[in-house]
């Protein structure tokens, strides 16, 4: 009956419900000053599960996924990632950031480093991988995102879509168990959105645990095991894409969907 039961029933074959969850958020609350941006967030993401988060601007989507790799700190509740509880302890922080990759809306490539250096920096210095090995790995991922020939260019010489694919490759080079995407296609021209979404679909097919903030409904329908709708800091509804999009239960989601459809 409840939304959670629906979700469990529709989990894709890739998602494993038996093991411990990859991400567990338990009654998470966060404030910016007096502004209550996350309210009692409960979210459990199984290993291999693909979750799409949507919601109006300012609803706290970015804040929520940024709490998962502690770019933001929550003030109440528990967040457990890959069996490590997020605390002020620096060692847990290092461990989590090594396991969680993140892709930003504005790419955030390092403009003074070449594409290859962007991809090898963290594996070499955080994973202590030998340089040769890191470069081979980077070339492998750059090939996967279909831009190996740009390896020696600088980010400024690439198109937006290419830069975002590099950003994905850069995150993958750390061999993360979980990938977070914060509106990865919102800063892109329409003709480049597809190439990035294709890359993400390909990644989803490898069984990666993913949380993706996006308003690309086509993408959500294609890959999401579950869609989470947020508004004003709360998770209002969640469920499999078809159910959520075709049969919204709350007024807020109905309004949001009608706005999204009008916008596109």
């Amino acid at each position, binding site marked *: 009956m409840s939304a959670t039961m629906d979700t469990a029933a529709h989990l894709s074959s890739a998602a494993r419900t038996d093991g411990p969850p990859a991400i567990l958020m338990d009654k998470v609350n966060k404030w910016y000053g007096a502004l209550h941006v996350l309210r009692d967030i409960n979210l459990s993401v199984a290993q291999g599960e693909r979750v799409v988060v949507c919601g109006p601007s300012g609803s706290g989507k970015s804040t929520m996924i940024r709490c998962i790799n502690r*770019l933001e700190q929550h003030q109440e509740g528990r967040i457990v990632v890959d069996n490590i509880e997020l605390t002020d302890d620096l060692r847990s922080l*290092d461990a989590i950031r090594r396991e969680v990759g*993140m892709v930003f809306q*504005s790419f955030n490539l*390092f403009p003074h480093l070449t594409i290859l250096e962007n991809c090898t920096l963290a594996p070499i*210095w*955080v994973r202590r991988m030998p340089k040769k090995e890191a470069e081979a790995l980077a070339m492998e991922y750059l090939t996967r995102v279909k831009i190996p020939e740009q390896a020696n260019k600088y*980010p*400024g010489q690439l198109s937006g879509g290419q830069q975002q694919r590099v950003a994905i490759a850069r995150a993958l080079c750390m061999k993360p168990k979980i990938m977070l995407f914060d509106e990865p296609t919102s800063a892109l021209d329409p003709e480049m959105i597809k190439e990035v979404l294709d890359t993400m679909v390909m990644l989803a097919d490898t069984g990666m645990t993913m949380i993706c903030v996006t308003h690309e409904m086509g993408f959500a329908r294609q890959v999401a095991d579950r869609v989470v709708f947020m508004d004003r800091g709360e998770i209002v509804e969640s469920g499999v894409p078809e159910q959520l999009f075709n049969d919204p239960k709350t007024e807020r989601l109905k309004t949001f969907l009608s706005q999204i459809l009008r916008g596109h």
Partner: protein
Amino acid sequence: MSDTAAEATVPRPAQESAIGPRRPPLLAVGPVAWARANLFSSWLSTAVTLALIYLIVRWAMGFVDWAFVNAIWSVPVVNGQAQTQACRALNGAGACWAVVTEKHRFMLFGTYPYEEHWRPALCVLLFIGLYIVSAMRRFWRKELAYIWIGTLTLIGVLMWGGVFGLSYVPQERWGGLVITLILATFGIALAFPLSILVALGRRSRLPAIKALCVLYVELIRGVPLISLLFMASVMFPLFLPEGINIDKLLRAQVAIILFAAAYLAEVVRGGLQALPRGQYEAADALGLSYWQKTGFIILPQALRLVIPPLVNTFIGMFKDTSLVLIIGIFDLLTAGKTAIIEPAWQGFGIEIYVTIGLIYFIFCFAMSRYSQGLEAELNRHRVR
């Protein structure tokens, strides 16, 4: 026939194929066009241009007459007394470069023992060599640090002596260009890293570190360098226990480093602030530690952004070392002033100051040109 077929299958922009790229109108390019547009665009601007050309030519001719045509390059010396009557007879119509010929050793090396002048001379060459090596990006490796340490040690040994059969020369007798180079080199080499730490500290999340850095910058910036130098030379020794005496040059050096670092720190902070927050977040998300993030991502970008104001401060600092004259340290400028105290040479200050100015100019201009090249090279990644 085939032409039309090709045109039908390969649509091309009609204009390009029909007319081809056009050159800009002839009048708009070339020096003549530039001069016409900028210097002779109206009667008024033509008049101003002609008047200025006249003034510049007059001044240049006067300068050539003074500096070269009427100049005296050397004077006879009788019984150790320079005979400057010929120079005085010129009455300002020509330069008396003889004063520079006669006193250049004093300007360059101050009161350093005359027969040992090769030592400071070698030091000056070592400094210049060090600058050249450091300027080449090829040498920007760990080894460069060893080169610096080695060269500076060698310079210390040469200047002080007392070992390897070199006679001991106390610091009070050092002077001239070497002093300027010592103050400037150590000043920049130590103030720059210090300023980076202070700038980082000012953005620290730890309140104590942040407060300390703010206090340091505000205190030092609020005080003129001259008063810092006075404090270093007069007040500081009062606080030292009896019997301990820190070298005057060292005290001045510390004052210069502290002063310059405060200014440089603000320049560096400007660069840090100019970086988008996304760069910090991306580095954090990849799991880089604070120092990895700072060293690989933040500083390389922030410093590139502030090369012009950095070099501006370096150049200012190089010239500010001349302020040590007020606490009686014999840098290049002080040595020059002292050289013309001798009665025979009194009144020939212009020649000395022009020469000293030229030496400062060479170093500062080299810094400026180098920084422009470096800026262009390091920011290549921003050009598409």
